[in-house]
């Protein structure tokens, strides 16, 4: 392994935190979905690093499933964004307050 496994883990941790901050703090629905994509990407990075560290192929096999999951999630998520934009004319999550008492 060219770098210590802990460095890969640390990189993935920072990347995951960036994605979580983006998913929680932004109000634009597209940016929330982008944050989820960043988090999935960080998870894939951990899997590839672990696959090399323990010399098992399971990690790389799992990254393929993560890719599938990300593709399905982004397709449904963007369709949801289009649907809600068509209903309300906005993609700002703060505007969806019809149920607010």
């Amino acid at each position, binding site marked *: 392994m060219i770098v210590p496994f802990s460095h890969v883990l640390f990189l993935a941790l920072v990347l995951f935190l960036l994605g979580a901050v983006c998913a929680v703090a932004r109000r634009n629905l597209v940016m929330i979905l982008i944050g989820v994509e960043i988090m999935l990407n960080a998870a894939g990075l951990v899997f590839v690093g672990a696959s090399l560290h323990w010399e098992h192929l399971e990690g790389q096999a799992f990254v393929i499933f993560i890719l599938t999951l990300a593709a399905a999630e982004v397709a449904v998520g963007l369709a949801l964004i*289009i649907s809600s934009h068509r209903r309300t004319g906005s993609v700002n999550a703060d505007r969806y307050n019809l149920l607010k008492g």
Partner: protein
Amino acid sequence: MNLYAAIFYLLAVILLVSTTVAITRRDAIHAVVYLMISFIATGLIFYLLGAPFLALLEILIYAGAIMVLFLFIVMMLRLTPSRRTGRDALSQWAPAAVLGGLSLILAAVIISADPATGPALKTLTAGPRELAQFLFQKYWFPVEIASFLLLIALVGALFLGRQEKKEPKTPRPEGL
């Protein structure tokens, strides 16, 4: 610290900087472009960690398909503010150009390297053949489930994206 470790840390810096810039942009198109650079850097890190096929898939699916889908949606919904000044366009795109060019140069360095002294050890690099054999021998059932998941996502996206005829034309002022 050899050359490949240095390349790894450089790629890590590119990854973190481009992701940080991406999540702080107000304009969604800028965020998508920086995220594309971030995913290309991730693919190169995958290549360095002994997964060339996954690096290819990462660049094809993440940086290619998913990000273009995002770009398509952002342009279709006209989310981007319409202020456009030609003067600072260059300074706006300069960081993206620098990060993207840097990652392309690193990609050229990695790909053109001698395979004998390649990134990971030769026995640890899993090419497409090994990965596919492993996947379809041990994990054939999850592969089928994943294909079923893609089918369900396709049907769901079609269902959500169709035009509703009975809805009133004018959007309601607020609320879902």
